[in-house]
């Protein structure tokens, strides 16, 4: 049983100090993912992940009333939190870019420049909302992998599927999302064209 699972079980039992032990463990998990990500040639975009993780943590921990069934449940919720934060941030940046919002952002505003540009993230999110209606399981896999950065093994644990099924659903979901995004891009270009 992993250390995270043990801590989550302690939290479930109501052990108050356990919550304090969870954050460093989550950081460690993120650090490992980050190291793997950075090993890729195209890594190196700027963002303040510490701020992102803190914000996600605040959403997850909240007032302390939430409980976690297990490690998979926790990271599933973490992926949802990451998605909300990143999409909210991308929407805000997009509004500013297009002339909305006259005031400056707060100094401590998150500066997130993810691998995919903000507007790509927004388009993917919009397509993901469509996929959620058409195929909730594929959509959930996208949330866990794309926004949560979970491995196939972790997604399989989260959803009670085999790793092979997760792999198959993930590659198909990517293709479906891309094809959903394509018409959105064409519409965007159409709207920008002079009539």
């Amino acid at each position: 049983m992993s250390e995270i699972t043990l801590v989550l079980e302690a939290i479930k039992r109501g052990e108050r100090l356990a919550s304090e032990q969870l954050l460093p463990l989550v950081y460690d998990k993120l650090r490992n993912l980050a190291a793997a990500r950075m090993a890729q040639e195209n890594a190196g975009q700027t963002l303040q992940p510490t701020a992102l993780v803190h914000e996600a943590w605040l959403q997850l921990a909240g007032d302390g009333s939430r409980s976690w069934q297990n490690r998979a449940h926790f990271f599933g919720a973490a992926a949802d939190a990451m998605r909300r934060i990143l999409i909210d941030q991308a929407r805000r940046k997009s509004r500013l870019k297009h002339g909305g919002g006259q005031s400056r952002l707060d100094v401590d505003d998150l500066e997130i420049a993810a691998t995919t540009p903000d507007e790509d993230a927004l388009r993917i999110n919009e397509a993901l909302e469509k996929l959620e209606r058409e195929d909730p399981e594929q959509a959930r896999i996208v949330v866990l992998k794309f926004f949560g950065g979970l491995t196939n093994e972790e997604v399989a644990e989260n959803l009670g599927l085999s790793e092979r099924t997760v792999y198959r659903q993930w590659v198909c979901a990517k293709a479906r999302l891309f094809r959903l995004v394509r018409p959105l891009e064409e519409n965007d270009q159409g709207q920008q064209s002079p009539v």
Partner: protein
Amino acid sequence: MREKAEQIFVSALEIDAKEDLKVFLDRACQGDDRVRAEVEDMLALRPQLEKMFPEGGVVFALTDDFVKASQSLE
């Protein structure tokens, strides 16, 4: 049709040689042009998919700062 196309697509991803892929698609699609077109369209997207969906997810395009910050917590 979509499920069939997706099954063929996933299997086709494991085939590198063009000739082998053609033979596989001929056999798997069984003359169904719509399924074949669907599979070929998905296969053509592969390079763009890797760019749009980087391994590790959107969250983890991280800087050294994060690694240092997280190491300080250990």
